[in-house]
């Protein structure tokens, strides 16, 4: 059984490469029983979405005062 620390490492690496069969199996097994790591797993997905939004200039789209954020 992998430790939480090891599982978070795999969940991080899954952002860079597809995990192999045994990695996926041990991950599934751990996540079934560990709510904290399930939360961590979904946070990885959120972190990616947030970062992509930031890199697309989203931060400043919301900082523009309302009257300038419109296109008319």
């Amino acid at each position, binding site marked *: 059984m992998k430790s939480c620390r090891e599982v978070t490492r795999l969940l*991080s*690496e899954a952002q*860079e490469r597809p995990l192999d069969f045994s990695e996926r199996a041990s991950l599934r097994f751990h996540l079934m029983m560990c709510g904290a790591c399930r*939360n961590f797993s979904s946070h*990885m997905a959120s*972190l990616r979405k*947030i970062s992509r*939004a930031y890199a697309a*200039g989203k931060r400043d789209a919301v900082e523009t005062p309302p009257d300038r954020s419109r296109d*008319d």
Partner: protein
Amino acid sequence: MSEHVAGGATALTDPEYLEGLRSQMQRFATLQLGDQDLAEDAVQEALVGALKSARSFGGRSALKTWVFAILKNKIADVLRQRSRYVEADRLVGTTGEESDLDELFTRRGHWRPEERPVPWVDPESAVDDREFWRIFETCLDHLPGRQAQVFMMREFIELESHEICAAAEISVSNLNVTLHRARLRLRECLENNWFAERG
């Protein structure tokens, strides 16, 4: 969306809009290049590129996404070129960073009770909140320099692992360790300062 009303070309001739956009780009580039002048060059080139074909853009938000995409390419170029200048001493010395994993996990690798990740409340709408972005940048600023740089290469510029390894002259395992730590820290910082507070 009403962005068909005014075209991207119109937006880029509006001095006030252009200045705002330029300073946003400057901040984004400086964060990643750590160098005001290099950042300025990248922003300038991206804007010149944008002006050339701004006419084809329907509105400001499409234009902004696109201008940032150009800027990301410029930053990627600079980062790749800079690979040879990465000082060796920034690539060693992870001892200080080792200890912060001990703060999160017990010796046997379990989460410490107070460090267990909790569910995030409405992560989708955070991106629409300007206060959230301030916290995001602050958390990013608190990452150790190399963690921040590698994280930004991966998540903002979307370089692949092998490209980052080449640019930063680190091994794949070093890259994975660095990204793991960056994500652990950033996650925790965002949770403590935003996502958990609202729960």
